[in-house]
């Protein structure tokens, strides 16, 4: 296991979750409209699979909600 910071909370991920793409699949978010920020860098969708996930990384997964 390795610990990352996910949406402001510590989260334990399995070692085989190697990339941001894997993390999204883990939460069944692969086909959803979500945006990911990795260590303060906003990722484009194409970057998800190629972005490695390491212990201590800070990840934000955000989406569109109702608002004015």
């Amino acid at each position, binding site marked *: 296991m390795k610990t990352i910071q*996910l*949406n*402001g909370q510590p989260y334990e991920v399995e070692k085989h979750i190697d990339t941001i793409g894997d993390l999204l699949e883990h*939460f*069944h*978010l692969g086909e*959803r*409209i*979500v*945006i*990911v*920020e990795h260590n303060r860098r*906003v*990722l*484009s*969708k194409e970057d998800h699979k190629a972005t490695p996930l390491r212990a201590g990384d800070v990840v*934000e*997964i*955000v*989406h*569109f*909600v*109702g*608002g*004015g």
Partner: protein
Amino acid sequence: MLKIGRYQFQSRLFLGTGKFSSLEVQREAVEASEADVLTFAIRRLDVFNPDQPNFLEKLDLKRFTLLPNTAGATTAEEAVRIARLAKASNLCDMIKVEVIADPKTLLPDPIATLEATRILVEEGFTVLPYTSDDPVIARKLWEAGAHAIMPGGAPIGSGQGLLNPMYLRYIIEESPVPVIIDAGIGSPADVVQAMELGADGVLLNTAVSQADDPVKMAEAMKWAVKAGRLGFEAGRIPKRTTASASSPQTGLVK
């Protein structure tokens, strides 16, 4: 036809998507409003409950232009960060810059709004800053390259209508970019007033989503925008202090 940056819209009504009682009511209200532009906020996803219903994912995204906001930001830096997140969705490059300075009045921070506007214009966004009714700040925003100016009629969600129509008129008369009256609208009458002042459009949310019948109110707002715009284009009569008979004063039957 309303043009903002590289976008063109049929409808001059922009609708917010917050505080609806259900997704079904919201869908019907959006339909009834005939709005082309819908606003959204960006928030953390609850990754442990990812299947909660999401309005945007049910929308026909070919029909609507998304206008995400930077609500929640209290600094220019936060606003820029949220704008970049929104753009990374590849769904839109329009952004409503909203940097709130005060939790009680929800009035915008003019300096941070201007700073964020400058950065986002530079980065190629289509930028629509939410601002107060101050004509001087409005001028600085379009000078900084904002593609439209969105002055509030009254504090967000207050339903107070247009508190300072005179200042809004100054902004409208001077601005080379479209002016969208955003926030504070309570009723169709407020919308008509804004449009008759010469506003290019209105953005409203609570006035519809919290109405007793949001779907009917959405339709009322649609007609109010059209009526107000037509009235503005038609040119109203001057107000007089004396009566002026509408019927002929000759050939009276006595």
